């Protein structure tokens, strides 16, 4: 009984955080919802939220979904061999490899994307190499492909890290046993590695999908202003058109995708919480 009381007392430690959550997470969300459901001239309206289905906005949404889906799939395909290869390294090398993978984050991300613009531009490094090889120059600059390269580049890390954490924890003995019993590499991957790394894969998807859908800097720089993601549309409503209500309305509709990701992670998290008996 005494212990029970102690625990409840300790819960008070979180009061500064609870105040912060209310003040800077809950209220801002309510405020953006209020803007979203208010017409520009005042008064309740759901027009700004339904504006997503305007042909221009809907086109941006479809392009965003295409980029986000493509980016997520490519990141998964690139990251799995990477983490499996990293697993083959010994412990010290693993830590070092991880460190080398994270390090590029310390170069400002806008500059890194600008560097890609230079690499992909018609007279850039890539075409220089391609022409040296005697091939036709590529016209990647200012296309959807350039935007795709940019988002994959920027978010690959967020797929590698959770996947690596999940895969590093798999017991080598299990794989050994499977091999002893005659399982082929593919069987081992689909029956053991994939299921055991599923939590990592899920959090990787969550960390890649929504951000790649809503980024506006990458599409701005690598799309040459022609490739509009839904993030670009929202940003312009705030900076150029100054229609805050419309911008808020579109933001609120984006939250549907955030809610879906949240459902994913919470399922993970609840299973992850071991009973905290004390």
């Amino acid at each position: 009984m005494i212990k029970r009381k102690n625990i409840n007392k300790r819960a008070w430690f979180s009061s500064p955080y609870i105040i912060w959550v209310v003040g800077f997470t809950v209220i801002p969300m309510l405020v953006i919802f209020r803007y979203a459901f208010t017409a520009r001239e005042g008064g309740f309206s759901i027009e700004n939220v339904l504006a997503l289905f305007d042909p221009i906005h809907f086109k941006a949404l479809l392009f965003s979904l295409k980029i986000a889906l493509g980016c997520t799939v490519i990141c998964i395909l690139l990251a799995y061999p990477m983490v499996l290869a990293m697993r083959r390294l010994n412990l010290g090398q693993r830590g070092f490899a991880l460190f080398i993978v994270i390090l590029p984050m310390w170069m400002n991300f806008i500059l890194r994307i600008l560097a890609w613009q230079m690499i992909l531009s018609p007279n850039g490094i890539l075409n220089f190499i391609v022409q040296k090889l005697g091939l036709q120059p590529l016209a990647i600059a200012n296309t959807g492909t350039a935007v795709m390269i940019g988002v994959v580049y920027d978010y690959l890390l967020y797929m590698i890290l959770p996947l690596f954490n999940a895969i590093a924890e798999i017991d080598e003995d299990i794989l050994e046993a499977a091999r002893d019993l005659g399982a082929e590499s593919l069987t081992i991957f689909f029956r053991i590695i994939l299921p055991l790394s599923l939590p990592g894969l899920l959090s990787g998807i969550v960390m890649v999908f929504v951000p790649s859908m809503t980024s506006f800097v990458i599409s701005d720089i690598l799309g040459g202003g022609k490739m509009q993601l839904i993030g670009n549309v929202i940003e312009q409503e705030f900076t150029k058109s100054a229609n805050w209500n419309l911008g808020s309305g579109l933001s609120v509709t984006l939250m549907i995708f955030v809610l879906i990701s949240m459902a994913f992670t919470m399922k993970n998290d609840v299973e992850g919480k071991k009973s905290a008996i004390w």
Partner: protein
Amino acid sequence: MVEKLKDLMSRCYIALILLFLYIPIFVLIVLSFNNSRSRVVWGGFTLDWYRGLFANAQIREALITTLVLAFASALIATIIGVSGALGIHAMSRRNYRIMMIFTNIPMLNADIVTGIALMLWFIHFIPLGFGSVLLAHITFNIPYVIMSVMPQLQRMNISIYEAARDLGANALYGFFKIMLPQLMGGVLSGFFMAFTMSIDDFVITYFTKGAGVNTLSTMIYGEIRKGIKPEMYALSTLIFLVVLCLLLVVNHVGARNEKKNRKYYLAQESNEREEFTL
């Protein structure tokens, strides 16, 4: 033989991914020595941009703002986050889940939505400027601290703390002498993660900063149309190299500690085995 071939292939694959991650960084480093304002022409080697860097008051100001912001927001987020995690951990299962959902919101929400929501709320009570950016950064940093402290809290052996309390230590003394040392790994990694996230952030800063304040990210974004000042490449190269050196040192020390720890764990494990046989 087959294993060796597999090792070689996995190393090649790691090298390929690293090449992809590092190409833009090489480009930026080369540009920082390029004696030409153009981004595509090589005008010979120069150190001018490094010299100019220390004379440029604007860049210096943005750098200081960025660092102060990152340090202050990470520190405050760590204090609120650690006490928050301690409290949440003591809550009932239902409240724990509710709090974790709210903790997930800033992490999963699209940056652009978080930034806009905070901006719409801030304009009701404070002028947009350094203060509002600081509040915003603390808000998105706290979840990273909680996420890195929580697993350690769940693994922590609370009996030691209770024993200390039974022997007459008060709550504060027990916290600083017993709990905090056990949590230190999570607290530190939470702080550094928050620091990194704050330095790397562009979108949320962009929407909450108002006029007059600039971090390195927002300054670079403002220069995209006019052309990036080459001093920026020099500064990023310097930051990159400083972080590289720091992390190499930390990694080296960490590896040495790990070796020690591993020996200790091995010794412990064999002790445990003996107990079993007894």
